[in-house]
């Protein structure tokens, strides 16, 4: 046995599947473009709906009925200006649309390679397995966080164009200056990014486990929905707060006069634990896995 000084035709593992290359692979996919389109169109549709409904129905009162959490208050304030419109759009999207989009980006990334059979050719290059996951995760998370950022930012602009740039109003009463409102919006976006880490980790794990992209995306979405359903059963207290989606809406705490960090800290901690476990499982499984697809 001896140390080899083989150049392998200028092959270097640390240069394989660079982030730029993976970005091109993903960005040129139709589903990425569709997701972006949905995110761009949604705020416009919501704004138009508000515009139309406020013209036909000027009373607009009531709205106190039970419904989606936080909904009524945020709905009533949605047309006050850019900030509140962005907040409402975020609220409307965070429960399902953003979950699906993040699940799509992170769940589809490995499983779709497996389903096209291109995974084995990447591994035969060879892209080291851990590196393959890392590069794919960097790109998938970038796209997910990008979606999380794009939606409120775009909704802010759309809201400003439709309803003006009035200062933000807290559902608890009181108003924010534009600077303070943007700061709160940033906190909201940062927290939803952290929350979407859970969906990302879960979808990524499923993506490694299965060769069917639909299974990974749908599975992650389904588990989030199941967690939401269980979370609505108050009889499950005190175990409910360990459900991964329990603190999903804790960013609402950033909308009062004083920001209350407690639940956001809990939510962040919980998500980080779940995500770490899911990511560790994904890596471990992928290292061991026989690639048969």
């Amino acid at each position, binding site marked *: 046995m001896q140390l080899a000084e083989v150049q392998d035709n200028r092959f270097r593992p640390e240069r394989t599947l660079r982030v730029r290359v993976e970005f091109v*692979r993903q960005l040129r996919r139709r589903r990425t473009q569709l997701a972006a389109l949905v995110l761009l169109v949604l705020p416009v549709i919501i704004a138009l709906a508000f515009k139309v409904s406020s013209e036909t129905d000027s009373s607009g009162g009531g709205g106190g009925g039970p419904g989606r959490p936080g909904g009524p208050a945020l709905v009533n304030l949605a047309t006050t200006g850019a900030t509140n419109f962005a907040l409402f759009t975020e609220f409307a999207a965070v429960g399902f649309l953003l979950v699906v989009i993040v699940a799509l980006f992170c769940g589809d990334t490995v499983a779709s390679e497996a389903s096209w059979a291109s995974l084995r050719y990447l591994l035969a290059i060879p892209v080291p397995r851990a590196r393959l996951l890392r590069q794919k995760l960097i790109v998938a998370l970038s796209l997910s966080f990008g979606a999380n950022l794009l939606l409120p930012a775009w909704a802010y602009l759309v809201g400003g164009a439709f309803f003006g740039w009035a200062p933000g109003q807290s559902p608890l009463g009181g108003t924010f200056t534009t600077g303070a409102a943007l700061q709160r919006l940033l906190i909201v976006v940062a927290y939803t990014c952290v929350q979407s880490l859970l969906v990302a980790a879960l979808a990524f794990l499923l993506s490694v486990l299965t060769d069917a992209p639909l299974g990974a995306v749908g599975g992650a979405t389904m588990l989030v929905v199941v967690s939401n359903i269980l979370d609505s059963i108050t009889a499950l207290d005190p175990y409910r707060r360990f459900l991964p989606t329990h603190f999903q809406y804790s960013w609402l705490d950033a909308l009062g006069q004083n920001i209350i960090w407690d639940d956001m800290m809990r939510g962040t901690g919980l998500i980080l634990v779940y995500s770490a476990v899911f990511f560790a499982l994904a890596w471990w499984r992928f290292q061991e896995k026989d690639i048969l697809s």
Partner: protein
Amino acid sequence: MGAAAVLVVTAGVFAASVRGSRPAAVTRAQFVAGTPEAGAPVRLDTTVYLPAKTPAPAVLLAHGFGGSKADLDSQARSLARHGYVVLAYTARGFGRSGGLIHLDAPSYEVADASRLVSYLATMPQVRQDSPGNPRVGVAGSSYGGGLSLLLSAYDQRVDAVGADITWNDLTQALFPNAAGGQPGVFKKLWAGQLFASAAGQPRASDQGGACGRFAPNVCAAYQRAASTGEPNTALLALLMASSPAGVLNRITAPTLLSQGEQDSLFPLDQVAANATGIAANGTPVKVIWRSGGHDGGTSTSEVVQYLQDWFDPVLLKQGRADLAFDVTVPGSGISSATGRAVSQTLRVDRGYTQGRTRPVAVGGPAQTIYAPAGGSPAAVTSVPGLGSLLNTAASLTGSPGLAAIPGQVARFASQPLPGRLLVAGTSTVRLSVTARAATDATLFASVHHLAADGTDTLPAGLVAPIRLTGLTPGVPRTVTVSLPAVVRNVPAGDRLVLQVSTTDLAYRLQNAPNSYTVALAAPTVAVATVDGRIVRTGAPWLWLVAGLAAIGLLILGALVAGMRHRRRRRRTVHPELSQVPVAVENLVKEYGDGYRAVDDVTFRVERGQVVGLLGPNGAGKTTTLRVLMGLIRPTSGTVHVFGELIEAGAPVLSRIGSFIEGPGLLPHLTGRDNLRLFWAATGRPARDAQFDTALEISGLGESVDRKVKTFSQGMRQRLAIAQAMLGLPELLVLDEPTNGLDPLQIAEMREVLRRYAATGRTVVISSHLLAEVEQTCSHVVVMHNGRLVAVGSVADIAGAGGIQLVVKDPRQAQEILAAAGVDSQTVPARRSLEDIFIEMVGADHD
């Protein structure tokens, strides 16, 4: 499968929580003798709830006015599960208990409760502090709360008290006067409803008539007050006896006082008087201002939690008593569970205190207001039990609405507040009141919250009635008014509005029309407030720390794994094998289900050879190639490529171009982009790729710029083989390369491979087609059922059966042979490798 695993975990949590509920308490219902009334025995209807472990301290539970022990069931079960013997009972005059209602009179209801304490002293399941003296706490809401306070004043055996939403002074509660002094305005709606709820109690005989089960003296006093609106001395004496106010100095048991913030019957000022009076003896007191109340409802679980937290240190000797003053601040946070504005608890660690005020300037001219004749129309602020509902309606319509009738209301507004203000407790203001004609006045003062957007809210729907007598018409009188005790978070920019009106539906109003001039005697309202901190339940930091630790572990694990990997990856080359493109040794691959796809296979491929891996479907060819590409892990045995051991991600794989089990192309990209991106993914310089050569081999022509999803199977196949040849690797591994190609393309492919090998490079192809292997390969490895059948050059193997003689005319040859005395027969010509192959594997096919 992974999804299922996670689901199982979630379901596990669910099951655990369901199983977590502890067994129901054992209950026993029976009658216990109470204080005899008018010479007749009185039986009290009781239920005992026993905990799992006895002896245990006892809790005596009393119900609210008009209720029965059945209302206490869930509360009692919770406490019993927590470890208390609970005795719930129906007070005299209610339900199935006997006797008449005396309004928590010391000689009747309180004496009854004292008998129940004695009864607890006889129970073996109850822990006794000394003979005849059980360890017992007493608790109740409203009527039961009043009884708890009175019992602990009259019976020193009580060790702890939990009184919820109850009164200090019934006279003050039913005839409140915010200007102080004499009894004020009759709270007629509440009084009427309470009377009706008790008068309607079923009773054994129909005696009593309109008084129902009220004791005759109580009934008569009430009826007189209700008709005149003034309490007479008899009623005042009766109410005094039933009020803790006079006996607070006798209470020595630690006392928990919780009061509702939505309560127009016993507002927060009642608890203030109780707390101050009891604390004056040095008795430990805890005060909680909770959400709900007589107008806002009561959460049983919340009350039980308060009781446990209070009773445990005293009765179970567990933990330390928490004497902090807890204030529920409505609308100060947003629930993450429901997303609505919710209350948060403000904690004042030094305990219950009062008197912190902040002056808020209010302004407005003197205003004349009119009291209508007959007291109608009257403002509606709260209706017994519905107070908060009306309040909600008012806040939704965005105007004070029913709570203010034009002409009846004087308003004095503040400027927008410069900062957030928490209104908590009884604020005061000095008013100057001038009656135009009358000598007395009935007025209602309140503080409204006027939001920046114009929404006007009356916090908790509470007003403070003012009754002034002995006025001189035209001469102003200055009075200090205690405004309703409320808790309200007022954001910066909102205003407070002091409102004085002449009517309120809930109170008895004057019949004669009147008018008053109301002015501010001082331009400020002393707004009561509370300094505390928002309760942080649990330690949210811990969660965050746990999360960060988990991520830290993940990163650490990744680093360690990477380091170990790098150490293992230190490249070692087998010296004898360094020039051998492929060396397979004793390769075994067994799948999870025990199926042996490859069983002890050994062969070598030398430089410049075109080696055919031949075998029927399922022979183990593809599995061998997958191991060769590091895609699957062998069960045992090794594969070396140019002397380096193959494992997942081994760098030597970069010297292999592969096509395994069909193409793996990105359907949304063109053929050309597929090749470019694939090469970009290798990270090697673009000039090494030799795209032109590869594209030429693929023979796709113009089609290479179409999207791959439009390609036919054959086109994809050719593109994938071109991809395998990118960079002209030293070893080319092709698995069934000719599937889907037409005969012409197969012939071309054969030529390409031969030329490829001629450059000193090596090709391994697998196939189940004999002809192909025979025509393309120089060497052959024959596999069957995972085992190696034969290895060698095509010529060797084909020649192994001996030499064949081919003749042009078999008939003639046979004749010649026959003449020579040799027997012969003709057989159809067969491809030689096929012969061998069938000979080798045929036995199993039979």
